[in-house]
């Protein structure tokens, strides 16, 4: 009896914390966060995770999904599952790169505009507004069409229209923080220039920016696969998920797995990152 009573607080200490955290995040959201971690690992290790060589004929063409060939085989007998895993890599890693690049650029522009104020702030604000009212997807498509298809051009075209969102959040946060007591105090104490920006203003703006970025992952993935579907990604043999779907469009009624399964993978990537974004928001809001 005493044993149980004594051991109880000790055991709930650790697991209690975890349960509380899990309750705040939500079970589904926690699954999403674990899923995003898993996708990242798969994307990083894709080359070693494919059961078959994604570029070679390994079986008859058009085999339906089975235990050996999870997603079936394509029109030249390549293993669709192996190709789809590489497709996850081709989608996930560039998507992360776009987010990271836009986040850094947007944060810096917003930081400078918010801290310097005056004419520069005005100018940056107008520029951001202009970017936000332009039909971004369309212009991004036009940019890729003009620069020529390819992964790098796709990334540039998307990033051009992605950073202004973060610049606006960053700028607004900095303006809000600028009048806070701790920043005033630092200023009175003689802290100026980059030190004020990086030590006193930036840390306060980071949580909102990270939340916005994490909720954006699915949007970037969706935009990238849209471009890939339209044939603006890498040229033909590259296993991009969107392109795999669009190339197999005509075989939908005969070999449904060819266009559907790669698209289903995109769905799971978006679903998990949406859930993870919600979970991430609860963690940062709570902290």
């Amino acid at each position, binding site marked *: 009896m005493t044993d149980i009573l004594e051991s109880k607080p000790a055991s709930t200490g650790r697991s209690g914390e975890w349960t509380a955290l899990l309750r705040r995040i939500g079970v589904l959201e926690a699954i999403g966060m674990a899923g995003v971690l898993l996708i990242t690992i798969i994307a990083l290790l894709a080359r070693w995770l494919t059961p078959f060589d994604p570029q070679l004929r390994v079986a008859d063409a058009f085999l339906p999904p089975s235990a050996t060939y999870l997603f079936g085989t394509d029109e030249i007998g390549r293993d669709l599952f192996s190709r789809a895993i590489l497709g996850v890599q081709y989608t996930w890693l560039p998507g992360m790169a776009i987010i990271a690049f836009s986040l850094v650029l947007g944060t810096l522009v917003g930081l400078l505009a918010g801290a310097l104020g005056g004419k520069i702030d005005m100018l940056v604000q107008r520029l951001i507004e*202009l970017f936000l*009212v*332009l*039909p*971004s*997807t*369309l*212009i991004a*498509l*036009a*940019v890729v*069409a*003009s*620069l*020529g298809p390819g992964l790098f051009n796709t990334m540039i075209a998307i990033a051009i229209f992605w950073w202004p969102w973060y610049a606006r959040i960053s700028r607004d946060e900095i303006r809000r923080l600028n009048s806070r007591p701790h920043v005033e105090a630092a200023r009175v104490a003689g802290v100026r220039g980059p030190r004020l920006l990086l030590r006193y203003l930036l840390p306060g703006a980071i949580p909102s920016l990270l939340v916005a970025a994490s909720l954006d992952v*699915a949007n970037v993935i*969706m935009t990238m*696969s*849209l471009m890939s*579907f*339209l*044939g*603006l990604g890498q040229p033909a043999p590259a296993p991009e998920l*969107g392109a795999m*779907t*669009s190339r197999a*469009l005509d075989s*939908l*009624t005969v070999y*449904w797995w060819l*266009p*559907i399964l790669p*698209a*289903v993978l*995109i*769905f799971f990537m*978006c*679903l998990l990152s*949406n*859930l993870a974004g919600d979970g991430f928001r609860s963690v940062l809001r709570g902290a």
Partner: protein
Amino acid sequence: MMSSYLIKRFVSLFAVLLAMSLIVFCLQSLIPADPARAIAGPSAPVETVEAVRKELGLNDPLVVQYGRFLGQLLHGDLGTSVRTRQPVASDIAKYLPASLELACMAMIMGTAMALLLALLQNTTRGAGVLRMIMLAAGSTPIFLSALLLVYFVWFKLDLLPGSGRLSLRRFSGPTGFNVLDGLLVGKPEVSLDALQHLILPALALALPVAVAVGRSLNSSLHDVLKQTYIRTVRGKGLGEADIVVRHGLRNAASAPLAMIGLQIGLLFGNLLIVERVFSWPGLGLYVVQAFAVSDLPAVLGVSMVFGTFYILINMVIEILQSVADPRIRL
């Protein structure tokens, strides 16, 4: 009030359109291939290419070229399509009605579904299930929902057509909007057929709109229903449905309206995908075919037209916002 707003709005509209034309102009000058060489032919002597270059004004300073480009735009000249060898403007006029018909239907369906979702979430239990459905729908790439609709509703169940605009081979009415034309020429069966062809592609386009607008409407409706004036109406003994419809929706309209504006921009991108999947002969398919052969004038011309639409629609939405909620000053 209104007129000063309109003036201010038109100035900024002009600025945005100017910016867009500048972007399009810059993209045009980015074309890796030499347009003069393309017109003169690969085996033409250097002098011929130079002559064509002069004729096209490619030796002029960029500012002059941009000015000329703007002048052409104002006259509705969007250049000539490399693929169809027709003026882009007349191509657009040919394919626009099909896309417009589809987009309108999609927006109507999307808004109706959003309304339904938000009302259900605010008046019934089981909001958790609805939230999951919306999350899943919001995570579905547009080509997946389009493909699933084609596969199940058309191919497996054969309930609705999954390709093209009409079952009839040849039909052309005065407006190009088939649903309308069928009625205008006294053939309601054509209208019905056109409507049936519209449902699946419009539904695919409407899903993301319904989710985004529904989510926004749900949260603003949720906030409005907590206000004291709603408590007052409730105290007067009005039914719950009456309260939500008559007093809740109008006050909650502003944020969802802005979301509708945003979604129209995304809809133009999704139109390319959906028209490709459903073989819908509109501007989306026109652009997809233009991508395949790097027909840049066609791509840029359509972008310019869609962009102008988008900017104009968002201006109308701002006006609607202030009509719905007079506290929002124009």
